[in-house]
């Protein structure tokens, strides 16, 4: 198993944000995590990537307990986290951003970059442009491209469609589909439940820090509860 989250509890000071959730992601799968604002989706991803640590419970990545491993060490083990809000380096060029993505990589950076440009030709045109001057969609592409520089074993995407025009959302999801078809293991967090369930092999519904439903993407898309709460009827 690639990732196994076992009964984790996560706090922000006194705030109990994640109240004992368990789930797993197998190699090659695309798993979606859906839920309303404040449900704890981003907190879950941050805890997996090591930006935060659980107070109790364990996280296993590649069969190793990484519950208290720092984020920067997990990157070298093949875990990529594209955070909510993109967090690209606004003062660096597109190319420099991609180079930062390859910080831990021992392989050929140019080859990795060429591969990223195949997914995102737009980035190639703009490789000398400063990150802060890119459009929102381009910034999202850059954030994803940067994460792909290490050819991650698990790619976690936190709301890649946030704030984007519908046409760009389509584009981003097309690329996620391409990545999935190329065998990338993906853990996708989305508020856009319809598109996420459509793309996912399996999905979990998160509500105020707890998993309330799980199943295959299509099962959840059919479920009345999900329809009512997340798919607008």
């Amino acid at each position: 198993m690639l990732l196994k989250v076992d009964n984790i509890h996560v706090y922000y000071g006194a705030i109990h944000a994640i109240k004992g959730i368990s789930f797993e992601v197998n190699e090659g799968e695309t798993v979606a995590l859906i839920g309303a604002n404040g449900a704890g989706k981003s907190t879950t991803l941050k805890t997996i990537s090591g930006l935060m640590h659980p107070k109790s419970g364990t996280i296993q990545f590649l069969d190793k307990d990484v519950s208290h491993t720092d984020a920067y060490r997990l990157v070298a083990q093949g875990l990529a986290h594209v955070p909510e809000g993109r967090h690209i380096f606004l003062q660096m060029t597109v190319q420099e951003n991609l180079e930062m993505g390859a910080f831990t990589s021992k392989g050929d950076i140019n080859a990795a970059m060429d591969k990223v440009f195949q997914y995102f030709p737009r980035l190639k045109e703009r490789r000398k442009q400063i990150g802060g001057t890119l459009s929102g969609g381009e910034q999202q592409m850059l954030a994803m491209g940067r994460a792909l520089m290490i050819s991650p074993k698990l790619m976690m995407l936190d709301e890649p469609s946030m704030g984007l025009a519908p046409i760009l959302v389509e584009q981003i999801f097309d690329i996620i589909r391409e990545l999935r078809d190329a065998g990338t293991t993906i853990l996708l967090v989305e508020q856009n439940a319809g598109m996420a369930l459509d793309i996912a092999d399996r999905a979990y519904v998160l509500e105020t820090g707890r998993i309330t439903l799980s199943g295959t993407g299509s099962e959840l898309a059919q479920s009345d509860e999900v329809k009512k709460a997340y798919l607008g009827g």
Partner: protein
Amino acid sequence: MAFLSNFINGLSLGSIYAIIALGYTMVYGIAKMLNFAHGDVIMVGAYVSFVSIYSLGTPPILALLISMCVCTVLGVVIERLAYRPLRSAASLAVLITAIGVSYLLQNVALLIWTSNTKVFPSIVSFGSLHIGSLTITGETIVSIITCVVIMIGLTLFTTKAKTGKAMRAVSENRQAAELMGISVNKTISVTFAIGSALAAVAGVLYCSMYPVLVPTTGSIPGIKAFTAAVLGGIGSIPGTLVGGLLLGIIEIFSRAYISQDLSDAIVFAVLIIILLVKPNGLLGKKVTEKV
């Protein structure tokens, strides 16, 4: 001629301010804290050189290298012991700790070297340059050249070297840097190491120019260099150079043409005016994130 001579002296004093200011600016940019004790590292650097020249009899250049090593270790240890445990504490707590470290260094220096003034031997062995009626001292030339070399070196380091790029990444977005696999702690240590080594260089140059060495020697140039960093736009390396040189020139000119006693007040008045007009400093920049 007096004008030109003052200008060159201003450049040279400003060069030293710029070298010190780099330490403030880099630490501020990367660790997001004001290292109030930076000025006192300058003083330690000067004392170490003093001791190695007089007690160990080393040649000045070797004394400088020893100073740089001692200050590098000192800077890294200060960060590790005093600042790192406060990484997620309120910035006021960190500032007060830094002030504490500053007093600690001064008091330890007082204990070791007493409050008796030491007359610092200039590390510059060649004499003055005379062009017509213009006299440029060796210290002046060395300060300016050192500053230029350091600025070029640091610019190359932050744009070309992997560690240098990591420093820029941490400075811009700590969390994103961490998600790239960059160790924030290690990067901050490197920053303190570089800043403190530069403080040693600045200390030795400053004391070569103004040879009075007491345990509080570092605080005035420290505060002025901090002013220079803010003036140029804290966090920016070119800004530091501009701020440092400007401060040095303003100081020397106000001393020469306005008032010896008021020169520091004038320097700070200029700072306030510039910050009123440009709150981010002369070369400070602001970029916003798109959502």
